[in-house]
């Protein structure tokens, strides 16, 4: 049985559970509140996410957590990691991300509660003059199979990214090669939002191998990646080569910063695979393209980040989805997200999210209310309440989830 077919056999309720666990590692588009429209000063990946640079580690102490009566001016960032206990040379970046959670989910089939180890990743990277490198290595008991180095039904070792790069032209032009996050849309932390799951551009496990050019200038940033495939996908059916599932194509974005408070971007992705993977954006309906042949997948859209003023940040994304395969009618759909992030006191985020998905001729929509509290440097507690009406033939299937998390990072 192929990997994909194995995934297709999952009970819908279990598929939903597998979908929900894991808000991804840290990527915070709301940092535009602090005037940051670009990501490269704080992250080794110039398009943002994950491993922090020396400057980023300082910002994580100054601008992100609750300061408990202190002002930002009183903060003296500790060097290195582990609250200064481990010094690092400026060219070396090391990080650890541990995220555990308890998930309660109620569907028409009942309520389930379980605890989840979402992320246990060690990351290392180099930013030495023009040369860059980044690698992550971790363990997950369940999920993230697309990033699994081992090939077990559960308890896998994962590497979400591993790449080498060089930067030139006053650090404005990057060439990166390896397993990379797909440059597309908002790099938001909630990897299971429809815009991320339907475009398969999340940072949890949807990275692919390829070569990426990144342009990182003050008023415009852009990334264009030639996708060679996700070489970590393995077919368990000897009759189907793993390479049949590898998508080849491109993914890219260009985003203009019209001020340090507002950006607008355009994304585009087109891939081809000999056989199609299953979409988990709506796990309650069969994906007509799963294991289909000669599968073309496209996503094109707009995204925006806007610091409205004071504690308010709005994030928005809307994508057109097009998928076709041999012998399957072309599917036209779309996905959208609108998120308001309010930070009434530093470190405490009240987040309202609305989202929608049209795919495979059914419509799903949902709303999130989330509270994320960065209560100490490197420590976050988060509670998400998620209501989703999944489209199914002839109607909708509701789902209500409460996800509580503790996240430690350094």
């Amino acid at each position, binding site marked *: 049985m192929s990997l994909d077919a194995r995934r297709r056999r999952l009970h819908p309720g279990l598929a939903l559970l597998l979908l929900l666990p894991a808000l991804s590692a840290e990527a915070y588009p709301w940092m535009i*509140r*602090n*005037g940051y429209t*670009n990501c*490269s000063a704080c992250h080794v990946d110039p398009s943002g996410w994950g491993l922090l640079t*020396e*400057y980023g580690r300082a*910002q994580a102490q100054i601008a992100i957590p609750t300061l408990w009566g202190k002002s930002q*001016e009183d903060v003296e960032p500790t060097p290195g990691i582990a609250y200064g206990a481990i010094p690092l040379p400026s060219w070396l970046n090391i990080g650890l991300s541990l995220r555990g959670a308890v998930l309660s989910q109620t569907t028409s089939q009942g309520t389930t509660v379980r605890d989840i180890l979402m992320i246990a990743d060690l990351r290392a990277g180099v930013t030495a003059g023009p040369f860059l490198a980044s690698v992550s290595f971790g363990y997950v008991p369940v999920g993230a199979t697309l990033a699994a180095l081992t090939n077990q039904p559960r308890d896998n070792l994962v590497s979400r990214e591993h790449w080498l790069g060089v930067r030139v032209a006053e*650090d404005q032009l990057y060439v990166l090669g390896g397993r990379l996050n797909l440059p597309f849309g908002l790099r938001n932390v909630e990897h299971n939002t429809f815009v991320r799951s339907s475009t398969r551009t999340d940072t949890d496990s949807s990275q692919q191998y390829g070569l990426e050019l990144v342009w990182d200038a003050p008023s415009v940033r852009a990334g264009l990646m030639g996708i060679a495939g996700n070489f970590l996908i393995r077919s368990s059916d000897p009759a189907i080569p793993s390479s049949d599932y590898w998508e080849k194509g491109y993914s890219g974005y260009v985003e203009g910063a019209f001020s340090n408070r507002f950006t607008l971007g355009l994304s585009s992705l087109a891939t081809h695979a000999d056989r199609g993977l299953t979409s988990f954006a709506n796990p309650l309906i069969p994906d007509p393209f799963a294991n289909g042949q000669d599968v073309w997948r496209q996503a094109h859209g707009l995204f925006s980040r806007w610091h409205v003023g004071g504690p308010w940040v709005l994030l928005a994304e809307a994508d057109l989805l097009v998928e076709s395969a041999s012998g399957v009618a072309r599917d036209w759909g779309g996905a959208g997200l609108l998120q308001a992030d309010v930070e009434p006191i530093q470190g405490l985020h009240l987040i309202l999210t609305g989202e929608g998905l049209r795919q495979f001729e059914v419509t799903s929509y949902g709303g999130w209310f989330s509270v994320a509290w960065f209560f100490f440097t490197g420590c976050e507690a988060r509670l998400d309440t998620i209501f989703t009406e999944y489209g199914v033939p002839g109607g909708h299937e509701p789902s209500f989830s409460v996800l509580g998390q503790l996240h430690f990072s350094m």
Partner: protein
Amino acid sequence: MPLLSGAARVEGEPSAGFRGHGPGGFSLEGQTHQLRLEDDGARLKILVPLAGLQTGISLRDRHMREKYLEVERYPDAVLEVAWSALRLPADGQTTDGTAPGKMTLHGQTHDVQVAYRISHSGARYQVSGRLPLKMTDYGISVPSYLGVTVKPDVEASASFTAERT
């Protein structure tokens, strides 16, 4: 006739600031809403108290004030422009131009070229302007923090509405 007399006043909320860049796409904007005008009939002085400049992160603001701008010793940035160098619009009109001026910052004064726009409506004049600065020309150390070094060339800007009485 000078745009402003001694009795002229700034209306609404003026703004003044700067935009600088660092490595790659790193950019930095500072802004203050404190600005005052002095007009002796021959020259217009725009004074911006620098202690109120904010960049979005207050630790960075403190470094900027204390380590780089040294605002206790040099509290204001001052731009002086001769009225004769400005092209003033008729009522209901707008003019754009460039004018020579003198910029005093961090205790040092240099000649600058100011790009300006002035809109005239009744007794109100809406003014905006920008000019390039090289901070090292003014004896300001290039800010550098944990691997991020700001380029010495920045753009300073100001906008305000003045009403002549």
